[in-house]
């Protein structure tokens, strides 16, 4: 009885504390869509409105306080990603530094609807728990709910603008911030971390807001060190609680420019000392430069090949001879005209580059190769490559309308400098029938691997340089004209041979449709491509090269295309909607690595069991990933090391769209796959980052596995 009475009083006291201290923060749930389709990602936002002077906390609360937590209650088929935190305010009071939100904040969480979600209303609910403080602190708790309609079309909600506004307040994930972190000097008790970066906005008052970390703490006070203009250099005290010193540091590089705060999310390796060059390192451990050189080399080669296309080669000799005649054999004049011609060629490629950038901007390009996650892109590219191959085989031609062609040759036939310029500018257009295939490939490259604008411009200019190179060389040394291969039937054969690499690409793309549609993908897309090829042949043979019954041929063409599209793609495949595909077992052979599907929970569970974890973030369309797996992972030494260390192998398949994986990649500051991580069995230690193929060697993997299992 006495016990009962005691409990009563405890309960009463608890109730009293909760009712007497009502929360000072209002919460509600906002969704950017009112109606969403299966396969969509709905951006949810927990909108917290604090009373004046009260604040809630960021993911790392700082010296005191606590981060807000959100527990979702979602119907089956809907999954929530990690919280995306807007850039907080650094708040100093009575010597304590915290990262907070005053007035209001929207914590963003992507919700993904998988394909099997049934149409109709579903309830989205979340339990939110937070600490709010002013002169005192209160614990806040509440449940927010919202009904989402699952339907056949997307419909924005009244909160779409609010969500959009707060998305802009998220830190930017800018992969090319040049920053580095290193120890000032190794010490035992506490160490100073130096963080250096090249200012992006050029703003003053740079700072670093560390993410929460296990086993160590990056101090919240920041000491600014003198740095050359345009750079920031900060000193942070790091306190270690247990385990080894961290080898990586993550957080926000913060710059303030004109009252606005810009923050860049980074994860940097901590080096033993400053980089020798002092220039800092790029954030992404990517082999971009070498692949860029390779791509530029290919572009140059592609440009050169443009010249031996049947419709271009015969023109070269004529052009150069024309220059020579016009300039009355004055070598200087020949060179001048040659240079102007080259400028014309480059200009036309610049125009093409800008068009490619426009196209790229029109599509959304959040992550590397994210287009391949969209089945529509894969089908469109397979179609394009098939048409390119057929065109090279001579099945049909690409021609400009007669009037445009006429205008072009009028301009180009002008003499002198302007004639030369237009000659160059229009060489590309005039030769469209031959250059289209190669230009299409270049365009595809720009779209498939979202490159920054300057890289695309560089790529296209390189194509132009390649195409113009022979002219340049010949206008300097007209005598070399006699070494020019003689135009002839061999050119036609060469063109046809070029069709086969294009077909190979189409085959690869066709295989990729299986990632989105399962076995039915290659069948129905393949059938569609067959009908398309047939239509192209009818077009070339009976519309373009025949003068009789052209209308009938045209109708047959349209019929074939309509049937191919309507039946194969629309009816049988439903190609425009994303489909759930069971990608099945990832074990490649009986003695191969026993890959399990990745999840954050699986990593944590394995670590709790004292196992290290290897995670391969990969995708079927990512060639580097596949090569890395084949030659860096699925080899006897790595296989036996995984067994020996009892390491859990997980595969995070990014073939289809997956916001959870995207968020995880973002957390490691990667724009996309490949990403290979080894999580040590001690969860307090940071994961080891392995380089992508070709730098990924089995010996590297083996030593990382050994280290992680310690």
């Amino acid at each position, binding site marked *: 009885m006495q016990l009962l009475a005691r409990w009563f009083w405890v309960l009463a006291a608890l109730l009293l504390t909760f009712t007497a201290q009502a929360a000072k923060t209002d919460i509600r749930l906002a969704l950017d869509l009112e109606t969403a389709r299966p396969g969509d990602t709905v951006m949810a936002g927990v909108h917290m409105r604090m009373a004046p002077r009260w604040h809630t906390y960021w993911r790392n609360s700082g010296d005191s*306080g606590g981060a807000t937590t959100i527990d979702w209650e979602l119907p089956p088929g809907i999954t929530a990603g990690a919280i995306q935190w807007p850039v907080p305010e650094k708040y100093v*009071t*009575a*010597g304590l530094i*915290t990262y907070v939100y005053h007035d209001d904040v929207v914590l963003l969480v992507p919700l993904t609807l998988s394909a099997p979600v049934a149409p109709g209303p579903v309830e989205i609910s979340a339990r939110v728990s937070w*600490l709010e403080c002013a*002169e005192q602190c209160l614990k806040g708790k509440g449940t927010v709910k919202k009904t989402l309609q699952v339907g056949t079309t997307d419909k924005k909600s009244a909160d779409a603008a609010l969500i959009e506004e707060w998305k802009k307040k998220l830190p930017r994930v800018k992969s090319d911030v040049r920053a580095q972190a290193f120890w000032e000097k190794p010490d035992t008790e506490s160490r100073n971390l130096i963080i250096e970066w090249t200012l992006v906005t050029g703003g003053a008052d740079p700072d670093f807001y560390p993410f929460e970390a296990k086993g160590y703490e990056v101090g919240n006070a920041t*000491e600014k060190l003198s740095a050359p203009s345009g750079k920031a250099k900060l000193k942070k005290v790091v306190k270690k*609680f247990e385990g080894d010193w961290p080898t990586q540091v993550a957080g926000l590089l913060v710059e303030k420019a004109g009252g606005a705060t810009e923050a860049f999310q980074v994860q940097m390796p901590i080096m033993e000392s400053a980089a020798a060059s002092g220039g800092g390192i790029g954030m992404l451990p990517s082999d971009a430069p070498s692949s860029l050189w390779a791509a530029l080399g290919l572009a140059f080669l592609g440009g050169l090949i443009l010249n031996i296309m049947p419709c271009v080669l015969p023109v070269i000799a004529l052009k150069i001879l024309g220059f020579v005649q016009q300039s009355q054999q004055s070598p200087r004049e020949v060179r001048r005209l040659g240079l102007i011609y080259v400028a014309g060629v480059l200009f036309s490629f610049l125009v093409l580059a800008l068009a490619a950038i426009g196209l790229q901007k029109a599509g959304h390009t959040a992550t590397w190769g994210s287009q391949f996650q969209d089945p529509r892109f894969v089908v469109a590219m397979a179609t394009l490559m098939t048409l390119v191959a057929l065109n090279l085989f001579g099945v049909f031609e690409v021609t400009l309308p007669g009037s445009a062609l006429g205008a072009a040759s009028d301009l180009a036939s002008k003499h002198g400098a302007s004639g030369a310029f237009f000659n160059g500018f229009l060489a590309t257009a005039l030769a469209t029938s031959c250059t289209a295939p190669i230009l299409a490939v270049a365009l595809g490259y720009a779209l498939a691997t979202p490159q920054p604008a300057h890289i695309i411009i560089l790529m296209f200019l390189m194509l132009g340089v390649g195409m113009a190179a022979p002219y340049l060389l010949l206008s300097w040394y007209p005598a070399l004209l006699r070494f020019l291969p003689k135009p002839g039937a061999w050119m036609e054969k060469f063109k046809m041979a070029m069709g086969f690499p294009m077909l190979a690409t189409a085959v690869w793309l066709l295989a990729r449709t299986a990632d989105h549609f399962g076995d039915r993908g290659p069948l129905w897309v393949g059938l569609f491509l067959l009908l398309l090829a047939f239509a192209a042949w009818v077009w070339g043979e009976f519309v373009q090269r025949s003068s009789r019954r052209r209308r009938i041929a045209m109708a047959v063409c349209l019929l074939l295309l309509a049937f191919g599209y309507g039946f194969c793609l629309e009816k049988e495949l439903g190609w425009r909607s994303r489909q759930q595909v069971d990608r099945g077992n990832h074990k490649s052979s009986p003695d191969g690595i026993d890959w399990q599907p990745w999840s954050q929970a699986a990593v944590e569970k394995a670590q709790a069991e004292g196992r290290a974890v290897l995670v391969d973030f990969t995708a079927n369309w990512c060639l580097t990933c596949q090569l890395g797996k084949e030659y860096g992972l699925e080899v006897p030494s790595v296989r036996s090391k995984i067994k020996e260390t009892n390491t859990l192998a997980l595969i995070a398949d990014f073939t289809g769209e997956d916001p959870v994986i995207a968020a995880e990649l973002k957390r490691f500051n990667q724009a996309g796959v490949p990403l290979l991580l080894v999580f040590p069995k001690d969860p307090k230690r940071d994961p080891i980052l392995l380089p992508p193929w070709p730098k990924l060697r089995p010996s590297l993997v083996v030593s990382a596995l050994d280290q992680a299992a310690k």
Partner: protein
Amino acid sequence: MKTIVTAISTLILGAGLVLGEAVVGKPAPAFTAKDIKGKTHNLSDYKAKIVVLEEYNLDCPFCANHFKTGAMQELQAYAASKGVVWLVVDSASPKSPSYRDPVAAKKEFEAEKMKATAWIDDSSGAIGKAYGLRTTPHMVVIDKNGVVAYNGAIDNKPQADGDPRKARNYVREAIDRLSAGEKVKVASTKPYGCGVKYAD
């Protein structure tokens, strides 16, 4: 050098207030302070004894949870049974709504059935700042030689609800290990809780 560091830190913090630090393995900062009953406590009085400092504020949900569930009182009683001196340190400034004058403090001590040795009035913040106490509850355990043996959170569950008895309690572990003449295994952690209400 020290002055330069202090000057820089002062500039950084802006508020003109610098927290010290109780470094594990180093002698604990000395102090003399009065408790709410007027009795003077000097750290040197407790040589040869284990001393626990508990930064305290019942208005803080984290602290309150430890007391409302009875977990803190249990731990205090356990410490007392091992001959440990347990000092509740209240560093809330008189300007803070969480400040307790000696009368209110005595009442709260009784009402909460605290089993601590004493409630130290640290409204000047002197002890809290010397030890770098950031949060309520921020805990420090000092060994029999006057050396800091533990500094950090009370347990591994930084939450203001649930039963704290289910968490791994670092202070209990430190007391057990020191009593057995062993080295403390987890000697420092990141403290959690509400910020200490020092005067600005």
